[in-house]
């Protein structure tokens, strides 16, 4: 990320995934690897994990509703306090890992990094990493909305325990994941074994790096979906964006549809601006900043990504088109 402001912010990686998917194994891998970096780890099940790290902190999962009348706007009060406390330490660290419990909705965790001024000033949400148990994924989808939400929120997905399923089953799981969230990078793993630079310091905020990996659209075969299913879509524009019109439209859109839009991200070519304007949002909350400069002669196009429920691609595209110069 080119912005000077973000360099002082500690990157936060949120680890999510169903119970038994392999989060703790991954966490221990991250901490035991010889990378010379120091991570603070915030967990919910203190003492049971056997994580070997001086900087493990217990969180209580205190989910607070924000008082703006919106049911989807919640934050984690314990995270705010813990991050404020960690910033008082003399020994600084290179990153923060937040492990959520297996049944948790990642929304309140992610929203905390967009909402609280102090947290925003000191940290940046680097990526939401979701670990998926390839063998039990379909069963977990049937048990409730958590597994689907964890996929929807993800920037990076570890499709784990691939050794326990056939190639055919694996393909089906992957297709289902793609049906929900086609913009997350998927890594197939066994025992959560993965190169750390594939999950840490991803700069999710700099969407350009993520969209490099955007898989082709041919993957789908999912056009006959129910309206209420969680899925992802993107809309694009080649003409420059009028920032005022965009702000108005996006503000109104998130106000009405924020509960259904789990994640939104975008890179905008703002009329007359030399740099990309990047944003990411969780439900109704979003954060934005100037990104890398456009190169000379580079095609200046804008792209928005939505992951959520009841998304109407034509309607969104029409709205966006009206924000163009």
């Amino acid at each position: 990320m080119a912005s000077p402001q973000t360099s002082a912010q500690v990157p936060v990686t949120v680890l999510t995934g169903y119970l038994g998917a392999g989060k703790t194994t991954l966490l221990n891998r991250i901490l035991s690897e010889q990378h010379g970096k120091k991570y603070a780890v915030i967990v919910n099940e203190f003492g049971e994990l056997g994580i070997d790290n001086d900087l493990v902190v217990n969180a209580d999962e205190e989910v607070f509703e924000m008082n703006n009348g919106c049911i989807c706007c919640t934050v984690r009060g314990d995270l705010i306090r813990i991050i404020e406390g960690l910033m008082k330490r003399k020994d600084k660290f290179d990153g923060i890992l937040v492990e959520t419990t297996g049944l948790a909705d990642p929304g309140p965790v992610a929203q905390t990094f967009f909402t609280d001024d102090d947290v925003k000033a000191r940290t940046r949400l680097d990526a939401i990493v979701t670990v998926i148990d390839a063998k039990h994924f379909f069963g977990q989808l049937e048990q409730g909305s958590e597994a689907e939400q964890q996929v929807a929120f993800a920037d990076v997905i570890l499709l784990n325990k691939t050794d326990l399923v056939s190639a055919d089953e694996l393909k089906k799981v992957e297709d289902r994941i793609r049906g929900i969230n086609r913009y997350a990078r998927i890594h197939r793993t066994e025992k959560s074994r993965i190169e750390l630079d594939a999950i840490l310091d991803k700069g999710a905020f700099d969407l350009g790096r993520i969209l490099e990996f955007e898989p082709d659209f041919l993957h789908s075969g999912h056009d006959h979906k129910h309206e209420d299913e969680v899925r992802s879509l993107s809309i694009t524009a080649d003409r420059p964006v009028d920032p005022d019109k965009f702000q108005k439209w996006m503000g109104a859109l998130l106000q009405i549809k924020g509960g259904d839009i789990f994640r939104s991200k975008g890179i905008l070519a703002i009329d007359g601006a030399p740099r990309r304007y990047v944003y990411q949002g969780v439900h109704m909350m979003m954060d934005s900043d100037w990104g890398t400069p456009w190169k000379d002669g580079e095609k200046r196009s804008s792209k928005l990504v939505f992951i959520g429920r009841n998304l109407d691609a034509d309607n969104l595209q029409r709205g966006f088109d009206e924000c163009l110069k």
Partner: protein
Amino acid sequence: MKIDLANPAWQQTLPPARSVATDAPVAACAFNRDGSTVAFALGDGCVRLLPADIKQAAPEATAPLHKGVALSLVGDPAGDGFVSGGDDGRVLRLAADGTATELLAQKGKWIEHLVAHKTGAVAASAGKSMFLFRDGEVREFGPHPSTVAGLDFSKDGSRVACAHYGGITVWSLSKEVVLPPRRFAWQGSHVALRWSTDGKFIATGTQENDIHVWRVAQATDMRMQGYPAKVKSLSWTADARFLYTSSQPVFTAWPFSGKGPEGKPPLQFGDEGAGLMTVVAAHPTAEFVAGGYDSGELQLGDIRTRRSVVLKMADGAAITCLAWSPDGFRLAVGNDRGDLLTIDLRR
């Protein structure tokens, strides 16, 4: 007090001060009971002690008390030293001779808030509970609906109020007459709490950039909005006529005398150029107030004249704590870079 903000000498020169540089952010500062020693709680777990008299040579006195961060600190109301709390879950009593005694150990909890009362009692927050230390005994109060995020004694020390999600809880501390806790409900996360110096009001700062005040006797309440940030620092004047709050560019005081603050704007004064006020501390006896900014600037204000002077120039490191000596002649200041400052206001 010889503090006269209208005097040109006051406006033009910075007061004498002692500054000690450390490399750990300062989480809290306090004077001991008789005002002879000032202490700073640091981000490396140490509590640093200095003579309050800035001309007195400072012996090296650093107590490595906590593993992690020393988060909270008060002067010991029952001794000559201090009481400290850490993110190691321990509450320690530090005597004047440097020896430490453990009052509490709560593994996995952070001791984020400590308050002391002149009767000798100390209260600490630890997770969802509040612990009371008095006459060599420890009592636990709680659990509260969420982590205790602010607490304070009533004027006479007979009760403690605790802030949490959804409101506050007031505990009666008497062992003879056991009263159920009183809950004052207001939605949202309350992240700071101060009981007024006359005992009539309890004020909280909330996660959502406003403050809430309850009248303790009537259980009625009021809400003040319009802050650009969370209000984490609240301070009542000695006479309880005003409540000062942080998180504005200037001193902000809500009037509580007469008909109170309802429907009125707060009194605001001071130099606007210093950024956002992070900590505010009303003088223990007179009508002065100290405010520390996120820019590092420190101002002293006088509500009678609405004048303010700069006591410390902005240097980029946000002020994290302020404490007045009991006699009100000295001010301790800490910042997030690790500078320990003691200012002498007598001229």
